[in-house]
């Protein structure tokens, strides 16, 4: 084994040996066997397309052996690659066996050369890419954003069916109800207005609003409530029209009404 090593090392140039040693020192710095092979291939100082894969295989095997002797932990990948390259080396060295299946040593070598070339190409373009002018370093976007103000608009939708069902809901409810009876207990604002208009002319001084309730509407609570509300609403309407003044001294105190006197 050591003989063999010796033999091979002698055939390497000083540069190659230095390179191989340098590699061993920081094997951790490599990104796997392909990376190592790419580095080794550079020592051949030829176009990657013309790289001698046989020579490369030898270089790599030396590298692995060295690492072993220096007791450097090598990942399994490195050893798998070493085994494969040893196999490739034998294929390249021996005359092809016509009875053997599988690709020839040359095909395998060509593919390895292709992989190395491709990896190198990717590294080159990666460097070119990073060398480009970059946003935020060489050219800049607008520093001060004028943010778009978002206006939220809500649209409501309803279908004809919603509409008809809504209407039907109300009307059917009414159909089953003694509607006329209801009116008996409802005093509308219109009625209240009608009642109050002729009365307010006489309200020279503050009068309690309850005194305007129609007769017969103050005993039943339901009727009283309706009449009070309608009368109150009517009063407000009259205030708005300028015929009436209204006041309430404090919360829940009686509401009082008075005819508005036109001052000049």
């Amino acid at each position, binding site marked *: 084994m050591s003989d063999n090593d010796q033999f091979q090392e002698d055939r390497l140039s000083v540069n190659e040996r230095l390179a191989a040693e340098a590699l061993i020192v920081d094997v951790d710095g490599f990104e796997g066997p392909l990376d190592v092979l790419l580095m080794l291939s550079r020592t051949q100082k030829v176009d990657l397309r013309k790289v001698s894969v046989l020579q490369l295989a030898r270089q790599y095997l030396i590298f692995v052996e060295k690492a072993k002797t220096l007791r450097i932990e090598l990942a399994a990948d490195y050893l798998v690659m070493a085994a494969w390259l040893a196999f490739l080396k034998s294929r390249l060295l021996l005359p092809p066996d016509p009875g053997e299946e599988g690709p020839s040593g040359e095909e395998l070598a060509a593919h390895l050369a292709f992989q190395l070339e491709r990896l190198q190409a990717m590294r080159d373009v990666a460097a070119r890419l990073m060398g480009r002018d970059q946003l935020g370093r060489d050219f*800049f*976007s*607008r*520093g*001060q954003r*004028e*943010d*778009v*103000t*978002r*206006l*939220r*608009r*809500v*649209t*409501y*939708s*309803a*279908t*004809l*069916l*919603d*509409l*008809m*069902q*809504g*209407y*039907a*809901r*109300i*009307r*059917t*409810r*009414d159909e*089953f*109800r*003694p509607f006329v*009876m*209801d009116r008996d*207990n*409802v005093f*509308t*604002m*219109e009625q209240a*207005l*009608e009642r109050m*208009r002729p009365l307010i002319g006489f309200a020279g001084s503050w009068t309690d609003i309850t005194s305007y309730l129609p007769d017969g509407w103050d005993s039943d609570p*339901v009727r009283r409530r309706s009449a009070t509300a309608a009368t*109150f*609403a*009517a009063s*407000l*309407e009259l205030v*708005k029209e300028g015929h009436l003044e209204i006041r309430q001294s404090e919360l829940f105190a009686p509401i009082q009404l008075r005819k508005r006197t036109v001052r000049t």
Partner: protein
Amino acid sequence: MTDDRETTQSETLFEAPPMAEQERMAEAVLFASAEPVSVRDLEARMPHGSDAAEALVHLRKRYEGRGVRVVKVGDAWAFRTAPDLGYLMQKETVETRKLSRAAIETLAIIAYHQPCTRAEIEEIRGVSVSRGTIDQLLEMEWIRFGRRKMTPGRPVTFVVTPQFLDHFGLETARDLPGLKELRAAGLLENRPPPGPLGLAEEEDEDDEVIEGQSELFED
């Protein structure tokens, strides 16, 4: 200080860039910086011998009438969108919501009974109509004010609008199906009659009642 001045003096020997170039520089710096840039800061960034103030004058002139302008903010300068184009910076997001039951019923009543006063709507629905509901329908332009009724108080009436008809694919409000047709179409549920005073209406939320009261004051 005097030393500084001398240095500057000697450095201006490396001639300042032409004004057109200085203008470009001012343009780029103003564009990229997050805050308005003072003349002093600008000059500090530009090559020695540059006249930032003059560059800004040129720049300002160049952007006159453009979509963006060079404006003075305090004692600093910045690019700002031309005010007449401010509306382009607004983005509307439209959200579609289902109309509330109260609004649908109110709308239905107006459509079937127009012209129709608020009191009439309330009478038919059995509950007070909140101002919000009417406002919403007005705003949607599905209803509008009709003529005032010739009754006490001369209450306003509501009618449906062409937009309403358009939305519901109707030619006129008279095209709305009648009750009989609704029933024939199976759209009427045959519900048992509610209590004598229509207590079912209580389900309309309290807030409507409250609103109803406040409405009295608004009217």
